[in-house]
């Protein structure tokens, strides 16, 4: 019984601290621009050699082209960014005014890039699904 009460107390403390963090404004969502996308890709993938970035209009994700035609996805997670090198199993497909990038990875949802103009050719890297 004492253990259960202690557990409830700890759960209450967790809720309070999370609410405090929210109330203190620790809920930023950084905007991703091309420079940041290149930086994130290079920092996460040693030797990637980021050259160009295609950034979603809403600043949440980007496709980055590296040396030797490699591609990487940069996507916002909380107030940080997560980077994935796109392997052979990844799929980039067109959808209306944007792209859908599917890394085929559990825990990483499909990412939509909203675009104002047609994407450059390197985006497709050999496979294009309409």
């Amino acid at each position, binding site marked *: 019984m004492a253990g259960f009460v202690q557990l409830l107390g700890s759960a209450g403390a967790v809720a309070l*601290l999370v609410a405090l963090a929210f109330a203190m404004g620790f809920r930023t969502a950084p905007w991703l621009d091309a420079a940041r996308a290149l930086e994130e890709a290079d920092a996460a993938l040693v030797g990637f050699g980021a050259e160009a970035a295609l950034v979603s209009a809403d600043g949440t994700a980007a496709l980055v082209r590296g040396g030797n035609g490699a591609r990487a996805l940069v996507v916002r997670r909380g107030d940080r960014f997560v980077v994935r090198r796109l392997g052979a199993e990844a799929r980039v497909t067109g959808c209306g005014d944007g792209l859908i990038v599917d890394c085929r990875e559990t825990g990483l949802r499909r990412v939509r890039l909203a675009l104002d103009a047609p994407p450059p050719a390197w985006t497709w890297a050999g496979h294009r699904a309409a």
Partner: protein
Amino acid sequence: MPPDLPDPVKLAVPAFAALVALEMWLVKRRGRGAYDWRDAGASLTLGLGSTVAGALTAGLVFAIAMFVWQHRLFDIGWTWWAFVLAFVLDDLAYYWFHRTAHRVRWFWASHVIHHSSQHYNLTTALRQTWTGFFSLAFLFRLPLFLIGFPPAMVFFVAGLNLVYQFWIHTEQVDRMPGWFEAVMNTPSHHRVHHATNPLYLDRNYAGVFIIWDRMFGTFQPELASIRPRYGIVKNLGTLNPLWAAVHEWAGIGRDLLRARSLREAAGRIAGPPGWQPDGPGETSEAIRARWAAQQARAPGAPQAGGGVPGPAQGGSEPAAGVGVRGA
């Protein structure tokens, strides 16, 4: 007659909560360090879950400890020096457990939870494993019982060790006095441990005494020129605590199903994280070697995770939202 020892971690919980709140205030006030309410929520939830998992398996761990202790080599009494010796030797056992937890994927699958935050603050300290018993982490303490240290004494000093490690998970403390940095694990040393920068990967495994890293060749000081980038080599795509707790186990299961040989299956379990059967993979050695080669080719290039590349320029490619790095 053994003394009735308290659980140091249980006693410290209110202080943990108060210090987390204080650290949030300091981050806000000083602009140094970072918090994110979603990340903090995931870390604290994982900490709570770890407490439950630990309580469920504590009886079994204690029974195993008692069994080994019954076959002890020496009778060690409840003296003050036995506590001190137990604390030091338990920290040495922790060093080897921790090093193994980073170098063998089976143990990493359990420990990765603690590293899966891209933040480094006091909530990260509480981001603890749910699967420690399943991964057999308790094996590393068995030699202490075999030597003759009473299980209650060992679990008490292990609790003190855990409490010590709480305060070093912060960016609010820069450096401690020189003598302290030389002997003890500090926020600076442990920031290196949580960083994914190639130079910092798999370094500073110490719990309380950094001397173990200095002795066994795994020490790396924090450099002013390389700011730590926190997290894991392949950061999680979600803040879901449940996925953080089990993702590496799921990865092991998936890789075992695809394994084409017994050698590959063994490597997927007992090899280092990132190991691949047909190449260097993404082990810390491979990443560090790639980074070193890159540095050798372009000494002036920004260091991974430590510098900011030049500004992107408007590219010639006919698409909006495209940035191209200048030559």
